[in-house]
């Protein structure tokens, strides 16, 4: 059966994920070393040790994401994160930076290493590069691939594959996007934040809500119109060819309907996005996919409508997995 990899932004969410049936939980330290570096989120060193012990006691694994790109002259902060995660008993480290993978492979040769989605390894040759140079055992695939493309990768690779099945959806290749830092000075790659809340403003107007990021208007919502995050790639803009959601509508990924295709494609693990979400999200979404996987095993139909309230814009998409736009 495919593994279910679940997000946790706090120790309480990690417990919720285990309760709801997670095989593994991914999480990060409360600093710039991880790509969900939001205020009030993530784990202190002590919380990480205790949470890993708790998870192991209940038969779940913990994957520690250290998936930003170390800042020049401050690489030791990231080295310490790797050392501390390893000594806390992490079952795998999720890394994006080549220098950090090199350090980890040399310093902790027995530590299982996963290639973060932020490394944007989108084909078998790129994946082989990470496997051959750093002994990477698993790659989290970018959300730019279709299911047949994923099948081609699993056929050609020795690396296990992990794919996103639910949650926020980057429409740009992950780890290769500077839209956020262009507007705010803070980027996923460097500070671990995309469209950071510190630069978001919501303004209530007569017509509804206006969201802006770093002074740029991202969207205007009518009073009862469903909303999304004020992320740049899901904003409403105008061009000489028309206005609207130029990059992507505010939607979330929901690949419940594609689980069979994923399994047949040889996918090892399914990943739920959302370390920045609360316990209610973690519990409901994890339980949904636990049931959907059980249904897949027994050959019955999975319920595909029930996660709608958790989606941006109250709408979901199959993303690149089914490239209707190709």
């Amino acid at each position, binding site marked *: 059966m495919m593994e279910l990899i679940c997000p946790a*932004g*706090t*120790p*309480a*969410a990690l417990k919720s994920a285990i*309760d709801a049936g997670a095989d593994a939980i991914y999480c990060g330290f409360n600093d710039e070393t991880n790509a969900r570096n*939001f*205020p*009030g*989120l993530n784990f202190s060193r002590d919380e990480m040790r205790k949470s890993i012990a708790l998870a192991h006691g209940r038969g779940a694994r913990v994957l520690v994401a250290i998936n930003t790109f170390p800042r020049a002259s401050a690489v030791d902060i990231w080295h310490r994160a790797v050392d501390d995660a390893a000594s806390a008993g992490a079952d795998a480290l999720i890394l994006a930076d080549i220098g950090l993978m090199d350090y980890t492979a040399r310093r902790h040769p027995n530590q299982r290493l996963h290639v973060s989605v932020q490394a944007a390894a989108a084909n078998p040759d790129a994946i082989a590069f990470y496997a051959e140079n750093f002994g990477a055992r698993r790659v989290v695939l970018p959300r730019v691939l279709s299911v047949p493309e994923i099948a081609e990768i699993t056929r050609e690779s020795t690396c296990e594959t992990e794919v996103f099945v639910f949650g926020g959806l980057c429409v740009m290749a992950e780890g290769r996007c500077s839209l956020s830092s262009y507007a705010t000075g803070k980027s996923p790659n460097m500070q671990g934040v995309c469209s*950071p*809340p*510190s630069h*978001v*403003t*919501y*303004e*209530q107007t007569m017509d509804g*809500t206006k969201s802006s990021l770093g002074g740029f208007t991202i969207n205007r*919502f009518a*009073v*009862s*119109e*469903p*909303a*999304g*995050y004020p992320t740049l790639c899901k904003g409403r803009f105008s061009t000489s060819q028309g206005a609207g959601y130029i990059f992507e509508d*505010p939607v979330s990924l929901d690949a419940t309907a594609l689980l069979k295709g994923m399994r047949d494609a040889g996918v090892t693990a399914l990943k739920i996005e959302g370390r*920045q*979400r*609360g*316990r*209610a*999200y973690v*519990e*409901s979404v994890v*339980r*949904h996919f636990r*049931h*959907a996987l059980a*249904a897949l095993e027994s050959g*019955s*139909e*999975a*319920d595909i409508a*029930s*996660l*709608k*309230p*958790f*989606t*941006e*814009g*109250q709408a979901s998409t199959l993303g690149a997995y089914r490239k209707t736009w190709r």
Partner: protein
Amino acid sequence: MNDPSAASPGPLPTIPPLVALAMRPLPLLPLQLVLAGVLRRIHRRNPAIFDRLGDHARARFGIKPIDLPFAFVVEARPPRLSVVRDLPRGLDARISASLANLLALLEGRVDGDALMFSRELVVEGDVEAVLALRNAIDDAQLDLAAEASSLFGPLGAPARRAFEAARGRVIGSSGQGGQSR
């Protein structure tokens, strides 16, 4: 597959306007005393709760239940709560939602982002501070019934049952996820 545990959302109920109107002339001081007691109690029992606020520990949050004729001003450090008819100016952030949604958020029974997406929760001002507050509260796993009833000493158990009944009426028997813990 009809998954009984899957999210069965639908908006939580709001206080009927007539009830809210009837509450308007109520004096605010007793309410403030009780709620401030609950806040201090929560803080005493979870001293680390506001650590997650980090730099935002000194922020002043205005919380406006849209279906009630009053609002709250809350500070974390030191823990302080006041009940007001209208939110004052100069707050760092304002949060408005129905009382039921606010209570469910406090207990981590609904997802704040989901409420934002469906426009049932409105945030203005310092969005980062609100996010930090949300994350701090979510990790604390608060049980409001237990916190409130502990104020009543030997009468705690009946008070707790009364609160749970009241909560059940306001929130419904379950949160967004459709399951109780």
